[in-house]
């Protein structure tokens, strides 16, 4: 296969993504609680983000089509929606693999899993709509209107719904009702009892030995007969050390701050993977992955759009998609 003018950028993209794959396995460190499975985040999250970009681009072209009635804009909207769909499926599959390794099942109707499935169905309906109308002008008009409404639901499904849900296995500090991701404060002399999600916690004691600060916290959960005691700790540098798991749950309790003199602590609930990007190596590879998958999406979009435009030129008005 002979190389051509313009292939340099594509080869650079190919090498870039190859470097991301290499780094994902050999540069990014293992994350405590997730093991090697945590590496999939480097692909899973950027692909999900690029999905939103592709669907948004598709909606923009649909609006342009409704405004100017230019069939090329409709072709661009279809190309972007197809790339978005492909990425959405890829994000769902990588998420399911992660879920099987870490949570023990490919699918557990977690709020974020459910919302991405709904999004997939919404865009599957977009393509079903396109194939169900024979008249090309009508098909384009209806599909464009539908596409705009589909894009309006996207931010709600991807960003709002999973965060307002009562509980999710996804790393998400905002799952606590009314939380600002800051956790809750407890005091030995003041408010000893607080609620984390649907878990009631009570501070029993706060001790400091050597370089370790220990908080003893009683936990009562719905449907739990006995009270459990968790002992999260802070190391000498004031960073969370032990993060005990809530009984029968995937969540962990983390001690964010402790003042032994005043007898106050600030604690929060964390899912495995929270703060994954606080490691600089992971962060840089993650950002590189975002750029790589964005570039790949643009390339796919460009190829598909060219094919659709060729089809339009050959058979004007008869683009069978």
């Amino acid at each position, binding site marked *: 296969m002979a190389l051509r003018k313009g292939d340099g950028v594509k080869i650079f993209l190919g090498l870039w993504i190859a470097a991301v794959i290499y780094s994902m*396995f*050999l540069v990014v460190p293992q994350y405590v609680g997730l093991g090697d499975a945590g590496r999939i985040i480097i692909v899973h999250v950027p692909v999900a983000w690029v999905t939103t970009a592709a669907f948004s681009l598709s909606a923009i072209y649909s609006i342009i089509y409704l405004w100017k009635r230019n069939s090329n804009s409709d072709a661009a909207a279809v190309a972007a929606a197809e790339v978005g769909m492909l990425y959405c499926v890829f994000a769902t599959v990588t998420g399911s693999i992660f879920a099987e390794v870490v949570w023990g099942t490919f699918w557990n109707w977690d709020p974020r899993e459910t919302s991405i499935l709904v999004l997939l169905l919404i865009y599957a309906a977009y393509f079903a709509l396109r194939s169900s109308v024979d008249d090309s002008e009508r098909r384009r008009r209806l599909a464009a209107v539908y596409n705009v409404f589909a894009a309006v639901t996207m931010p709600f499904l991807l960003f709002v719904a999973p965060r307002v849900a009562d509980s999710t296995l996804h790393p998400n500090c905002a799952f606590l009702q009314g939380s600002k991701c800051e956790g809750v404060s407890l005091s030995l002399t003041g408010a000893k009892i607080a609620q984390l999600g649907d878990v009631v916690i009570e501070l029993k004691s706060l001790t400091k030995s050597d370089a370790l600060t220990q908080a003893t916290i009683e936990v009562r959960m719905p449907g739990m007969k006995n009270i459990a005691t968790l002992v999260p700790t802070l190391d000498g540098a004031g960073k969370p050390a032990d993060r005990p798991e809530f009984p029968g749950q995937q969540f962990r309790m983390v001690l964010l701050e402790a003042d032994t003199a005043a007898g106050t602590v600030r604690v929060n609930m964390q899912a495995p993977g929270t703060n994954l990007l606080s490691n600089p190596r992971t962060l840089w590879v993650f950002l590189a992955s975002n750029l790589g998958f964005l570039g790949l999406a643009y390339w796919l979009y460009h*190829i598909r759009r060219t094919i659709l435009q*060729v089809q339009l030129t050959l058979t004007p008005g008869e683009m069978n998609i």
Partner: protein
Amino acid sequence: MTILLDAGVAIYVAMTTALIVWVGVFLFLLRIDHATQDVARQLNERTTATDAPPPRATIISNDSATQ
């Protein structure tokens, strides 16, 4: 085959597999990209040739020229 699943080896196996898949996908995309460019260019050339105005010439006969 079980050696491929050993903790120290598995990660290299996974990385190699992912890289091989990516190289395959990349080459496939590059081929499709080239083919698409060719078709688009040929179609453009054909459309341009069809749309070009017919050549015009004024034929002046000897008779009219002498008049």
